[in-house]
């Protein structure tokens, strides 16, 4: 077990290093002069040569690539992560200010996805090919096709139209005003949760159906256990493992999807910061935020793998 743990963490670190190198390279192959990208051609022409050199120096973009990379790693270690070019804050401060909102949305959405997806999957598998199964499957297929940000826009529109309601647009943390904060995060969490829930329902249905064919389930039925107890107590624990893995993989869906959904709801979280930074071509901010998303994704997948090994003893011995 320890060996497995160590190897998995080592691979995680290796991937992390690769991720940082790739982001760094991608951000350095920006076409043309980064200053033109930042200020536009007109703004660039207005700058004097000395200004240009100073700004490049400020950004640390005039150093050799290796020095820049090491500098970035140092900035990460110090926690400041470098400075946004357009705002006074350091990237670290931006993340501390806006990160909690996005983290809340992400975690709530995972909870919602399990609360919705698992019961739907169980109902489907309980009576395959019944009417409720067909309805559940059709709805989940539909939710796999609806883009989350569109659903978000429709919800915003409907609330505005029928209730004249608009969610607050400020950054409000849960420790400042829980009710206001709840209004801010619940919409994105539901939309993201339903999107994942569709995958979870589909996966848990097919896994349950596979497990239900096993001998021990037949034994349980034969000794007279009532049907719903067979499903919940006997079949479910074994069927859940792949669903847990899927939930980890879906974190990519959460992290990526939240960017567009935050934009649609107008929630000032990290996703919106990333979009703004990409449009403004604020290299340092983009570089760090993309890295952060990569770190979170890798971390969660390592955790899922470890929990998998913990839940299923067969894996530890490989």
């Amino acid at each position, binding site marked *: 077990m320890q060996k497995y743990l160590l190897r998995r963490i080592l*691979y995680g670190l*290796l*991937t*992390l290093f*690769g*991720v940082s190198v*790739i*982001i760094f390279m*991608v*951000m350095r*192959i*920006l*076409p043309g002069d980064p200053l033109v990208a930042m200020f536009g051609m007109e703004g660039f022409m207005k700058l004097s040569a000395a200004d240009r050199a100073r700004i490049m120096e400020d950004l640390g973009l005039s150093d050799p690539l290796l020095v820049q990379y090491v500098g970035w790693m140092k900035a990460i270690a110090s926690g400041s992560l470098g400075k946004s070019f357009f705002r006074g804050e350091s990237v670290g401060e931006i993340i501390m200010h806006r990160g909690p909102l996005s983290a809340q949305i992400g975690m709530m959405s995972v909870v919602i996805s399990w609360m919705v997806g698992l019961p739907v999957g169980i109902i489907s598998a309980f009576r395959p090919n019944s009417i409720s199964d067909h309805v559940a499957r059709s709805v989940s*297929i*539909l939710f*796999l*096709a*609806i*883009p*989350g*940000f*569109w659903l978000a*826009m*429709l919800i*915003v*529109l409907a609330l*505005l*139209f029928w209730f004249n309601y608009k969610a607050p647009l400020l950054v409000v943390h849960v420790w400042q005003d829980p009710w206001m904060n709840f209004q801010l995060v619940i919409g994105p969490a539901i939309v993201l949760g339903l*999107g994942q829930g569709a*995958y979870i329902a589909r*996966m848990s249905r*097919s896994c349950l159906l596979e497990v239900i064919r096993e001998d021990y389930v037949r034994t349980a039925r034969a000794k007279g256990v009532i049907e719903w107890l067979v499903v919940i107590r006997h079949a479910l624990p074994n069927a859940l493992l792949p669903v847990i893995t*899927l939930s980890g*993989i*879906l*974190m*990519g*869906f959460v*992290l*990526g*999807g939240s*960017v*567009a959904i935050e*934009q*649609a709801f107008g929630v000032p979280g990290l996703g919106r910061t*990333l*979009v703004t930074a*990409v*449009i403004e*071509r604020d290299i340092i901010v*983009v570089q760090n935020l*993309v890295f952060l*998303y*990569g770190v979170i*994704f*890798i971390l969660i*997948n390592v955790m899922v793998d470890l929990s998998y090994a913990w839940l299923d003893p067969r894996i530890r011995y490989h």
Partner: protein
Amino acid sequence: MKQQGNLQSIVSSAESVTKVRRWRAATGTLSTLVRHNPTAMGGGIVGLLIVFLALTAPLIAPYDPLKADFRRMAKSPDTHNYFGTDQIGRDTMSRVIYGARSSLVVSFGAVLLGTTVGSLWGLASGYLGGKFDITSQRIMEILQAFPDLILAMAISMAIGTGMRAVIVAIAVTRIPFGGRVIRSVALTVKELAYVEAGRSVGASQLRIMGLHILPQCLAPYLVLATTHLGVAIIIEAALGFLGVGIPPPTPTWGNMLADSLTSLVPHWWLVFFPGLAITVTVLAFNLLGDGIRDTLDPRLRGSIGSRG
């Protein structure tokens, strides 16, 4: 002379018999698809219809999608403009129809490019093995460590805007999927006897990969490509919606949704119709992809799920 004619007629009749057989086999597969999977068929028909709409957009669209009409700005749907008009009086229906063009070109292009590169890479890495395989797997892992949309955003920021950049950006996110699946196929196939036979008579590695292993990868390749079309369409729309996709005024569904946010209170028809177009298209391709997967390779069920 007569004999020769006879021979010819025999040969041609034999040919026609095999043709008929092939035709029957093909229609047989098709009819099983229809009988066992009417939803997949429905998806295929709707998908074809959307492709047809995109191809014949100039003939079908009632108005020029770029022409502003300042006498009819932000009109709700009526008999002149079935889907209404936007803030500067462009016809929403025409823009939705033209939007199918960019959406389909980007998604087909990206999936074809990404899956092909990934598959060839996976084939080589699975067959050759060794250090090349290990390095390739690490690189694919790194590519998969980014959420799709975020990787696509970063790449399209780096290589510039425009349709080609968007295609490349989405294609890169598709590479690891093709790589993983085809690698596992290559790993199985390379152990088979006929591949060993090829190796024993001295066939080059390139020849074995191209002539012996590649054909076995075709079915999973097709399945991969169709199941990823829907995801590609959603990523393209999201990029457009976030303002980092194909730049306006080109009508794309994502751009139209982004445009709808420019007014203080968005008009419902500007939000509803482009989004509906995305949903219907993605749904059609997903259903078709699931059907093709179940027909061609039932083993792949669940293993190549697409994720957003």
